[in-house]
């Protein structure tokens, strides 16, 4: 049926479907479906609208009617119809099929206004899907109103104008829903809470007094570690040192750090400092309550779709919680999040256990441990990202790059085989002193530990509930070690891991026992625990690999540094002035 139509409408002759051909073709389809012969004359009849089975609704129908009237105008739907069918396969069934074709039209005008700096595709995709759902109805209304209009260019102009108004409306609605997420995630020049916390922490490492400033040379050394080229660093400094005093206050430092992070992630540096990075803005923003974190969590739960994006933002949150600005508040945030966890109930047992573990002295470790259950519930890619943030204190951490994390997750099985070797060889000073305490703590742990490592993702089938519970505790140790290393110098970090694992386990043992009767009740919980164990193992493997990579990087950086220092020595006598 199709070849004759293409012939008749002239497409075959011309070689492509122009607007006229397309319009004729649709009419012919309608004709054919109504039983009329496929001929030019049939389009003169009063035909019912063509039905397209592939497409769920009668959006094409409407396009058919407009095509009757305005062949020129059809040019726009022509392009979008293809997209429409494409989107169908992508996004499944939609209430308002009009909206997919509309989004290509309206999104370009929309993007400058609202999502101007959005190279992040996930944010865009998320907003688009939300837009589509809300746009079908208004678009249809306006579409019919436009049917009598004149030139298509005029139409095109007015359509986006009108769509923009509804866009703004829907966007404002969306904004209320997703305020913290979209505005914080989409605008690359806006500092999120967790980023701010990280920057503040870094500032503190350079200058303990938060109200004072970092001198130029100190800041220079710090930012040079980011391995950005000097001209770019110079430009970043220019942008962020607003008062041009050769020193960075806390907001200036945050802005500079943020620019470095953005540049490392591929964003071009702006010509002028974005508004969200101005010191006044940052100072005002820093006074906002941490409550936003909890709101963010609850919103992220209620919103449909974009799970991947949620993982992304949540891991950023997870990494933020590793930084102990306010452990009490963070505990609250975590409690809310725990309730919002979609994971099975057994996983909730683990957070409770960790809660007991927080009784110990080092608050950082507790936060890190609590962060673990949350990050465990997501893909291992997100765990790696969270750890990346934690493990690079001197250099600004790169924002997780999706391609890289996906590649790493593919390698997970392979890595897991090498888990033992990676653990032994990759981890430097902290692991050797820390590993012995683990077996010494309890006898039952030792056989279970031996079981764990050589095995692949299959959890030990013969695990009793006792050992299963203890295994969770055991696995709690490896994830916490890297974060401990992050938060202190290596010298200091050595002592705490030695002590705390022992304290960890002893305090948890009594708490494990009350759980035992509960666990014995259902094997379903046991299975859930085993999945948790599996996930912990994956996290472990990822962390080990990350560690070895970082060690490699460290070695290279050392070499570079030595080379630069020798160069400097050679050039020293030749300095100007």
């Amino acid at each position, binding site marked *: 049926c199709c070849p004759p139509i293409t012939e008749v409408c002239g497409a075959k002759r011309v070689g492509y479907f122009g607007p006229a051909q397309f319009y004729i073709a649709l009419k012919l389809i309608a004709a054919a479906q109504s039983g009329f012969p496929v001929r030019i004359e049939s389009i003169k009849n009063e035909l019912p609208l063509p039905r397209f089975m592939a497409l769920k609704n009668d959006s094409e129908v409407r396009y058919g009617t407009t095509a009757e009237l305005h062949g020129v105008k059809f040019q726009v739907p022509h392009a979008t119809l293809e997209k429409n069918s494409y989107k169908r396969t992508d996004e499944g069934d939609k209430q308002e099929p009009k909206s997919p074709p509309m989004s290509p039209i309206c999104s370009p005008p929309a993007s400058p206004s609202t999502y101007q700096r959005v190279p992040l595709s996930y944010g865009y995709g998320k907003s688009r899907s939300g837009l589509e759902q809300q746009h079908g109805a208004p678009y249809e209304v306006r579409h019919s109103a436009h049917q009598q209009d004149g030139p298509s260019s005029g139409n095109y102009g007015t359509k986006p104008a009108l769509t923009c108004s509804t866009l703004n409306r829907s966007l404002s609605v969306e904004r209320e829903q997703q305020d913290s997420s979209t505005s914080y995630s989409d605008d690359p020049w806006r500092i999120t809470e967790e980023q701010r916390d990280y920057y503040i922490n870094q500032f503190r490492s350079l200058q303990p007094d938060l109200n004072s400033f970092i001198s130029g040379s100190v800041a220079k050394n710090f930012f040079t570690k980011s391995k950005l080229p000097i001209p770019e660093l110079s430009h970043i400094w220019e942008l962020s040192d607003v008062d041009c005093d050769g020193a960075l206050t806390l907001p200036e430092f945050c802005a500079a750090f943020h620019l470095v992070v953005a540049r490392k992630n591929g964003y071009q540096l702006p*010509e002028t400092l974005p508004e969200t990075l101005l010191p006044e803005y940052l100072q005002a923003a820093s006074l906002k309550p941490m409550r936003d974190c909890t709101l963010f969590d609850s919103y992220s739960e209620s919103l449909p779709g974009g799970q991947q994006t949620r993982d992304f933002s949540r891991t950023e949150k997870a990494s933020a919680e590793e930084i102990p600005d306010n452990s009490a508040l963070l505990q609250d945030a975590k409690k809310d999040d725990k309730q919002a966890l979609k994971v099975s109930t057994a996983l909730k047992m683990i957070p409770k256990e960790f809660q007991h573990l927080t009784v110990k002295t080092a608050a950082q470790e507790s936060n890190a441990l609590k962060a673990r259950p949350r990050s465990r519930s997501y893909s291992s890619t997100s765990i790696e990202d969270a750890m990346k943030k934690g493990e690079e204190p001197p250099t600004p951490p790169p924002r997780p790059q999706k391609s890289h994390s996906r590649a790493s997750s593919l390698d997970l099985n392979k890595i897991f085989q090498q888990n033992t070797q990676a653990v032994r060889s990759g981890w430097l000073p902290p692991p050797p002193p820390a590993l012995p305490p683990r077996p010494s703590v309890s006898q039952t742990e030792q056989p279970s530990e031996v079981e764990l490592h050589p095995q692949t993702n299959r959890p030990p089938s013969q695990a009793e509930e006792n050992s299963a519970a203890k295994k969770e505790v055991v696995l709690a140790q490896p994830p916490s070690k890297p974060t401990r290393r992050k938060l202190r110098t290596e010298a200091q970090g050595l002592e705490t891991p030695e002590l705390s694992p022992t304290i960890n386990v002893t305090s948890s043992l009594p708490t494990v026992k009350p759980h035992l009767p509960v666990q014995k009740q259902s094997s379903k919980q046991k299975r859930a625990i085993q999945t948790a164990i599996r996930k912990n193992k994956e996290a472990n493997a990822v962390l080990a690999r990350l560690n070895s990579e970082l060690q490699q990087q460290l070695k290279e950086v050392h070499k570079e540094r030595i080379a630069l220092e020798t160069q400097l020595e050679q050039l020293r006598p030749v*300095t100007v002035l």
Partner: protein
Amino acid sequence: MADTGRAGQTLENYPLYIRSVPTENELKFHYTVHTSLDVVDEKISAMGKALVDQRELYLGLLYPTEDYKVYGYVTNSKVKFVMVVDSSNTALRDNEIRSMFRKLHNSYTDIMCNPFYNPGDRIHSRAFDNMVNSMMMQVC
């Protein structure tokens, strides 16, 4: 149409920064600036032990030649600013030149504040460029 060129130069007298509007005849400006350095040095040495204050940093009209005038300015760290202005541009008064030099000096100190800038490097700062451009547009 006024041709303007300006350069900042250090003790060793290599240019840190040169900008001219319009951009043809740039070589001529280079040459002019270089030769005017001699005059600047002369003036500096003539000042000798005189108190160095803002006023004396401004060297004034170095020499009017052919169809342009050259103004000089030297900073405390012996960085010289040389401005070449078309003679036909009679609207430019001494005060304006002084203020322009002051702006240049301020921008230069801002650059110095940047720890990533090593004294003696060529100046690539965008802020500096913008400032110079706006000044030159103002003149032309």
